[in-house]
């Protein structure tokens, strides 16, 4: 087991301003109404600092970076 992270969005909190997609276009794109579509799966290690930024900068704190335990 290795330590891994994935992104989640609280769909009720998120108000779709799309800041997260600007900060992390590698993993987040927006739908036609400005709400985020997250790339599935584990966040690649080199993107973790950026993902952390997206978590911190979301104006309504809707994004979280959660530990997953995926056996390798």
């Amino acid at each position, binding site marked *: 087991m290795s330590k891994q992270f994935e992104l989640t969005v*609280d*769909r*009720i909190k998120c108000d779709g301003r799309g800041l997260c997609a600007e900060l992390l276009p590698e993993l987040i794109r927006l*739908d036609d109404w400005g709400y985020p579509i997250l790339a599935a799966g584990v966040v690649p290690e080199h993107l973790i600092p950026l993902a952390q930024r997206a978590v911190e900068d979301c104006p309504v704190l809707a994004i979280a970076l959660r530990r997953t335990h995926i056996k390798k």
Partner: protein
Amino acid sequence: MTRLLGTPDTLNPLPPVGADFIDAIERSRLMGRGGAAFPVAAKWRAVAQRSRGNAVIVVNGAEAEPQSKKDRVLMSERPNLVLDGAFIAARVLRARNVILYIGERHDVARNAMLRALSVRSEPERRMVTVSAAPARYVAGAEAAAIHFLNEGIATPTNVPPYPFERGVGGAPTLVQNVETLAHVALLARTGETPRTVLVTLAGGIKKPGVLEVDAQTTIGEAVLRTGGATEAPRAILIGGYFGHWVEPEQAWDLALEAESMRRHGLGLGCGVVGLLPVSRCPVCETAAIMRYLAGESSAQCGPCFFGLRALADACTRIAQRGSNPEDLTRMQRWAVEVRTRGACRHPDGAAMFLSSSLQVFAQEFASHRAHNLGRTA
């Protein structure tokens, strides 16, 4: 053989059940009948593990699915059987409270349940509270039921926490459909569950209504038992508004049973089998159902609120003004994009329904000419 319907609803002492009853449920492979076909034993174990004599049992008789009637028929005809299931759950899971969550418009069913309750034992009656589920589609979803019981607002909330972790009053909570509880009661009484399902036959059928069928009964046989179709069906909607359209030739031989449905990539859902007659326009029908589902979004999550509305609008444009390739392409994309992007599974159900429409009625959608809209769902 024991069955749910057509048997007198007698009041008998509850059969003795202990913690090992969950093993019996597991062996019976009973699955939930509220739509998601979730294994009952797994749900009970999750509550049992956490209950310290404080668990809550929510008896889900909301039945907000527009075409479904089976839960109401069951509560009206076998209220004691449903109550038995609830009290058995209360005993096994060491619950302090049983809540009857019954659709606010289901007067006959609620009265039958209350009448049955009035002659139960004093300790049983003291455990029960009754709550009227708002007549909205999402009010029957378990997180919405709990939100309503806690705060009077019947909209879904984020999970986790799951009901078994933190439900009514923060206590571990079991939300179970009434038909599921009736099966539990018969299992406790007879040692086996009847291998039957309650289905509601709707749409172009001579005698629409609720039928209890053996699990191996095919859709064709069920239709014949209700006097047959009013005219040749164009397609059959299996599982209600979160269900799938299936071509009649394929649907006819399908067994009304969750596992065999799953093997075909389908689901029995809440047990509605709806026949669309050839004389009705499938595009207009799809548009009407999508408008209904979009209107039933609780408007909390952007992808559900905006996505379903856009899907319903695009579908309605095609219905009213005729086919256009842009809307078709966008609908295909949106129907994929909105899935899993809500706090509850409302957008998933609506999107799967729409995808099956686009697939089964591909030709009608591609060649549709402007119509007046058919009647609404």
